[in-house]
C-alpha cells in the first residue's frame, strides 16, 4: 500500500496546504495522485525541471542564510515554492473587513494562506463582513469552480457554506451579515471560517481556516431565536423535588415548655392545698355510701383510660362500646355519690 500512498496521506497533503509552503521537500514527494503513473511521472519531470531551473535561486537563498537573515529566506522560499507549483489553487490580495451599518468602514485585515487572521473578531447584528480576494491557479489569476466560505460552529460541528461572487479574472467578493447565517449557528460561542478553493482538473485544492468570529446577538435577536428542533435522543433527567418535611422547633425549647406545663400541675395542687383543700371527708363518705363513691370515681378514671386507649391503639367503635358500658355505671353511681354530697351540704358540713 505504502508506495502508492494511502488515501489518508493524500487527503492530509491536500487539507493542509500550508505545509507545502513551509516545507517544500516532502510535498514534492507526496505529489497528488501518485498511484496514477502518467500524471505522477509528468509531475516528477516537472519538479526535476524546476529544480534545475531554480538552482541559482537556491544558491541565493544559501547566501541569505549565511547572512543569517533566516526570516527573509523563509519568505523567499515560500514565494518561489508557490510560484514553482503551478498545479495548486491559492489566493492573493485577501482582505477581511467588518463594518458597522451606518458607521465608517472598519479596518481591512489582510490575510494570506500562511498567515490567517488571529485577532478575536466579533460580528454584531448590525455588522457586515466583507471578504475580498483574488484566486490564482499557480500564479495566474483564474476563476475556480468552487470558492466557498464554510462557517462552522466549533462546538457542535454544524457547518454552513457561502459561495463567493467571482469574476472571470478571479476577483472574488463575499458579503456576510449575521442574518445570512443560519440560526442554528448563531447561538455558538465561536464560528470558524474556512475558505475552500477548488476546481476541476489536477490542481491541488485549498482549504484554509482564515479566522474565528464570535457572533454577538442583541437581546431582541436572542429572544427571537427559535427553540431547537425536536430530536429523538436522550432527554434531560427530571427528579421530583419533595416538599420539605414538617419541621419541629429545637427539642430544648419543646422540653423547656414541657417542663413549664408539667410544673403547672403541682402548682395547681399546691395552690389548692395551701387554700386548705383536703380529702378528710373520704372516710365519712365511704361509710355513707361505700359502693357509689368508689364506683363513681373509678368510672371517671375508666373514661380517661378508654380515651388513652383510643389515643394509642383502639378504634372509634371499640371506644364507643367501652363508653356505652361505663356511662350507665358512672350515671347511677354518680347520682348516688352526689346525693351523699348533698346530704353533707344540708348538714352544714361543706
Amino acid at each position: 500500500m505504502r508506495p502508492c500512498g494511502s488515501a489518508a496521506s493524500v487527503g492530509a497533503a491536500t487539507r493542509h496546504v500550508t505545509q507545502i509552503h513551509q516545507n517544500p521537500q516532502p510535498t514534492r514527494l507526496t505529489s497528488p495522485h501518485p498511484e496514477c503513473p502518467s500524471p505522477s511521472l509528468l509531475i516528477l519531470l516537472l519538479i526535476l525541471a524546476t529544480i534545475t531551473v531554480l538552482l541559482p535561486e537556491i544558491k541565493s537563498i544559501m547566501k541569505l542564510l549565511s547572512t543569517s537573515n533566516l526570516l527573509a529566506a523563509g519568505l523567499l522560499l515560500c514565494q518561489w515554492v508557490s510560484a514553482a507549483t503551478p498545479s495548486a489553487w491559492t489566493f492573493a490580495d485577501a482582505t477581511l473587513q467588518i463594518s458597522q451599518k451606518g458607521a465608517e468602514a472598519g479596518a481591512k485585515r489582510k490575510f494570506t494562506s500562511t498567515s490567517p487572521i488571529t485577532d478575536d473578531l466579533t460580528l454584531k447584528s448590525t455588522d457586515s463582513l466583507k471578504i475580498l480576494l483574488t484566486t490564482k491557479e499557480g500564479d495566474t489569476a483564474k476563476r475556480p469552480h468552487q470558492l466557498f466560505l464554510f462557517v462552522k460552529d466549533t462546538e457542535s460541528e454544524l457547518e454552513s457554506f457561502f459561495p463567493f461572487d467571482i469574476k472571470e479574472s478571479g476577483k472574488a467578493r463575499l458579503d456576510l451579515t449575521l442574518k445570512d447565517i443560519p440560526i442554528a449557528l448563531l447561538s455558538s460561542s465561536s464560528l470558524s471560517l474556512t475558505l475552500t478553493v477548488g476546481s476541476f482538473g489536477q490542481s491541488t485544492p485549498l482549504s484554509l481556516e482564515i479566522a474565528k468570529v464570535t457572533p454577538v446577538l442583541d437581546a431582541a435577536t436572542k429572544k427571537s431565536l427559535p427553540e431547537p428542533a425536536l430530536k429523538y435522543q436522550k432527554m434531560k433527567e427530571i427528579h421530583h423535588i419533595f416538599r420539605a418535611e414538617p419541621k419541629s422547633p429545637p427539642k430544648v425549647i419543646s422540653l423547656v415548655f414541657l417542663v413549664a406545663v408539667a410544673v403547672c400541675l403541682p402548682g395547681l395542687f399546691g395552690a389548692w392545698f395551701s387554700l386548705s383543700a383536703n380529702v378528710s371527708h373520704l372516710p365519712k363518705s365511704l361509710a355513707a355510701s361505700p359502693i357509689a363513691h368508689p364506683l363513681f370515681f373509678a368510672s371517671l378514671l375508666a373514661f380517661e383510660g378508654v380515651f388513652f386507649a383510643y389515643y394509642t391503639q383502639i378504634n372509634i367503635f371499640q371506644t364507643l362500646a367501652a363508653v356505652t358500658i361505663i356511662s350507665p355505671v358512672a350515671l347511677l353511681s354518680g347520682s348516688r355519690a352526689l346525693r351523699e354530697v348533698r346530704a353533707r351540704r344540708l348538714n352544714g358540713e361543706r
Partner: protein
Amino acid sequence: MGLTLRSVLTALVSLVSLSQGISLTGPRTLLVVEDDVKAQFQTLISDLEARGFTTTTHTPKSTTLTLFQHEERVYDNIILFPTKLKGLGPNLPSSSFLKHATAGGNILILLPSSADDNIPTAIAELATQVDIFLPPKGFAVVNHFDLADAIEPEHTTLLVDLPSFPSDTRNYFNTGEDKGAKLLYSGAGLAVGSSPLVQPILKAPRFAYSYDTKEATSFADDENVFTAGKQLALVAGVQTRNSARITFVGGADLLADKSFTKIAKTNQMSGNRAFAKDVTAWTFKETGVLRVDGIEHWGEEFGKEVVNGDVYRIKHDVTFSVALSEYSYDHFEPFVAPADDAVQLEFTMLDPYYRIPLTASSSALTQHKNSTTYSTTFKTPDQHGVFTFAVNYKRPFLSNIHEKRAVTVRHFAHNEWTRSWGISGSWPWIAGIWVVVVGWIGFVGLWLWSKPVVAEGKGKKKQ
C-alpha cells in the same frame, strides 16, 4: 395468561424466523425495475435472495402491478430502481407508497446516479412528503478534495468514509469487516429536513457540494449550488411513526455491481457491498427493531409478592423493570443501548415527575432470559393521583417503543402518619392535655371529699 400467550407467540415467531431468517416485515419484495437496469444490480438482488427475500419484478409502467389486494399489502418491501422515465406507471402514484408505509411496508428508493436521468414525479412527491428534499434534474455532487479517480475530469465519483454517528446512536451501517473501507458514490445527493423521523445515513465529505451541471459550468454561484458539506446527505432514512422504513439512496450506483470493486486509488475493495447489505437490512427491518418482552413493577409495601399491582403509596420505593430485545437478521438478542444513550423511565401525571435512566440490571426478569432487563428504583412523589409508568424510547434507526402502565398512587392511610408523640414540637401540647386530665380528676376528688376548714368567726368555708 397474557404472558403465556405472549411467550407462545414469541416462540411461534422465533420458529418462523428460524426457518426463513428474514426481515420482521416479511420476505415478499417487489422490484420496480426495467430489465436493462436490473442487469446492473445482480449482486444486490442475489444477496437479498440469499438472505431469504423472495423477489417479484415489475416494470414501472406495468399494468398488472398492484400494491394492495383486498386492502392488504401484497408486498412487504419495495425497491424502486432508477428509471429513465419521467413518471412511474398509473399503478404507482406517490399516495400508494405512503399507503404501503402506513400499512407497515418498507420502501428502498434508488435515485439515478447520472445527472441526465429523471426522477419520477411520484418519487419527488413522496420525498417532499417525508421531509426529504431532492435537487432538480441535472445536479451532481462533486468533491475536488479527495478524488476517487485522478483522471476523471468531472470529479463526480466520490470517495466517502463509512458512516459514523455520535456515541449515543447505534451504527447499523458499518458492520462490514473492513471498518476503514471507502464507499464509491456518484449522484445528486439529498437534503433532509428537521423532522426527527428523518435521519441522514451517509453524509457527503466536508467540502463536497451538489451543483447544477447545466447552469453552473464555469463556477458554482449561490443559485446553482443545492447544498454542500455535511448538510448534504447521500443516503437518508425515514422511519414513520409506525416504524415502517423508507430509505432514499441519492445515487443508485452506490449499490450497483460496478461499485463492488477495487478502488484504484487505495487498491482496496470498496465498502459498497457490505454497506448495501447494511442499508437493505435496516430498511427491510432485519436490524434496528426493538421488542418489549416484559414489564414488571413492584413497591416497597408488598415487595415482589405483588408484581404489577395497581396501587402504590406516596413516598414509597418502587422498582420498575422492562426487558428489551433487538432483532438481528434472524433472531432476537438482548438489546444493549449505546454508551451515551439511556433508556429512560418517566413517571407521569400530566407532567413527568420523574425522568430517570433505566440501567441494565443483572437480575433478569424470570420469564425473559434472552433480553436485557433495564431497571430502576425510585421514591414515588409526595403527590397522590393516577400516575403512568412510561418508557418512550425513540431513537434514530431504532423502532419506536412507547409503553405505558397506569397505576394509582394513594395518600398516607390515617395510621401511616407519624404519631403525635413522635413530633417533638407537640410535646408541650400533649403534656397540657394530661395536666388538664390529672388536674380535673384531682379536682373532682377534692370537690367530693374536701372537709371545710372552720375559719375564725365563720361557720363554714365559702363555696
